[in-house]
């Protein structure tokens, strides 16, 4: 959330009116970020260590969320999994949004054949279902972590492009753009100083929503066994590993899913409860 302290026109006050749902969603997200950053110092057991003689053990005082299919501590594995799920998704969504928004603004400002070509091509990419796209690319380049990040960011670039272009086209017709053009400003200045500040709010909200899609796709791929590979495990991979515990209603299957749900639902709720001023499509 961008709270601007620079009191330009009308003196914008610091902060927005607090919305309890939004605040608690932000709290959950913050918690997961802290977990992702400091997981190695927080885990009670080592992730590879077999601490339970039984597999799919129940919730107990020592093993807070039970044990997995090998008798390892699920709580520790979820904490460490946060690093992969959050890290990969955040890296992918940042790359996707950065390139998508940059291309979108360029297309809107430049117009002409560049705009047409880019839009056609990226719309075509957009019409490949994301999960399918993921499957095909993973089949081709494998599922190392850098490859996953690259795949996910390619999949979500067209969406970000479309969104940013639609916003930038509106800004492009404003008077100050005409003035800037007459002044003889070049493309980099136009997109960075004239367009970007006017679409930043909605673009950030869009980044949040896209982050949810990326988390879901990454978890889905890992669940299919095509995402993060052992010995590392993100939350989707944890569900896959322990799917054998489903008939025993093992906590090892449930809690990684709940971790994903808590993150994605929180992000969605946060975006939904953002103040209109940030979220709105039309720039003021």
């Amino acid at each position, binding site marked *: 959330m961008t709270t601007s302290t620079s009191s330009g026109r009308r003196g914008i006050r610091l902060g927005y009116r607090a919305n309890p749902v939004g605040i608690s969603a932000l709290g959950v997200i913050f918690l997961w970020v802290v977990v992702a950053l400091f997981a190695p110092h927080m885990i009670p057991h080592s992730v590879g260590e077999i601490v339970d003689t039984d597999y799919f053990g129940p919730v107990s005082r020592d093993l807070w969320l039970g044990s997995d299919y090998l008798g390892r501590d699920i709580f520790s594995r979820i904490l460490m999994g946060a690093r992969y799920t959050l890290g990969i998704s955040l890296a992918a969504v940042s790359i996707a949004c950065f390139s998508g928004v940059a291309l979108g603004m360029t297309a809107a400002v430049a117009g002409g054949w560049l705009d047409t070509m880019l839009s*056609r*091509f990226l*719309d*075509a*990419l957009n*019409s*490949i*279902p*994301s*999960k*399918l796209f993921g*499957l*095909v*690319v*993973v*089949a*081709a*380049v*494998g599922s190392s972590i850098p490859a996953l990040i690259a795949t996910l960011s390619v999949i979500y670039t067209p969406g970000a492009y479309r969104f940013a272009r639609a916003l930038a086209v509106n800004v492009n017709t404003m008077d100050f753009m005409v003035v800037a053009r007459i002044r003889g400003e070049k493309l980099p200045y136009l997109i960075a100083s004239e367009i970007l500040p006017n679409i930043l709010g909605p673009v950030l909200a869009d980044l949040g929503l896209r982050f*949810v899609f990326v988390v*879901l796709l990454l*978890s*889905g791929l890992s*669940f*299919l*066994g*095509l995402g993060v590979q052992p010995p590392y495990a993100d939350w*989707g991979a944890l*569900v896959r590993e322990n*799917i054998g515990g*489903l*008939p*025993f*209603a093992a906590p090892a*299957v*449930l809690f990684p*899913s709940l971790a*994903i*749900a808590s993150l*994605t*639902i929180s*992000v*969605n*709720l946060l975006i*939904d409860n953002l103040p209109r001023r940030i979220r709105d499509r039309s720039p003021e």
Partner: protein
Amino acid sequence: MRRQISSLVMRRLLIALITLLIVSIAVFSATALLPGDTATILLGQSATPEAVEGLRKAMHLNDPAIIRFLKWIAGIFQGDFGTSYANNVPIANLIHGRLANTMKLAGLTAAIAVPFALTLGITAAMWRGTLYDRIVTVATIGIISVPEFMIATLAVLLFAVYLRWLPALSFTNEIKSFYDLMRTYAMPVMTLTFGVSAQMIRMTRAAVVETLNTPYVEMALLKGASRPRMVLRHALPNALGPIVNAVALSLSYLLGGVIIVETIFNYPGIAKLMVDAVSTRDLPLIQTCAMIFCLGYLALITAADIVAVLSNPRLR
């Protein structure tokens, strides 16, 4: 006027065709990116260079990529999808029954999800701002934000583990009665229905709410029409286009859902075939499955576009 509509529709179809071409290039080049030589992978590490070279020649792997691409496309048009690497069976044979299975699953889901979602979406918009609306909205946000495999695992946990009503796995070859059919399909269809409906409810509700904000609906309110009459008689006919559009778009989410659902329930459909092909790196099979999925997806979104054009007098 009429000609203008048909030219718009033709334009959409043309765009879909171009898109399909770009998609096929993307699918082909993604699979052509594969590091390592296909012939070497097939024959294993210990193959002699002569054997590898022979296989390369037999599979036309030495041809330039563009030739292979054109051959592949030409083959598809003639119904020849190539041969699976993994088990050396013509792909058409592999796909045949599986495609029918997936269509059955998707059709059944659509038959349940569409009426269900439309009812919920329209009524939620009708009683906008009430507790009922809030519950529906929060539930759909919740379902959309959750991965499909979580809905599936929760469904298995609830109905197969705790309540013991349903089997956890699908076995389509052991169906003897209608009751068996119901039991087998219940879980996969339920999981898919949840995801698809959540999308559809959200979009339907948004479409109806948008029409409810128009002056003529306000007029209906002012003249004293009841809420159901206001929505069903005045707003709904005008929201029909966006709603059909929403239905087609949400049905395209089926494609993503089917991949997870078929895997988790071990359902012998085309998505399961494709996931298996990815793990064995069976490229021709992956390409064919991917093209089938993209075709279905494109057909749905093109249909949605065309409906949007036809239903909106301003777009005509």
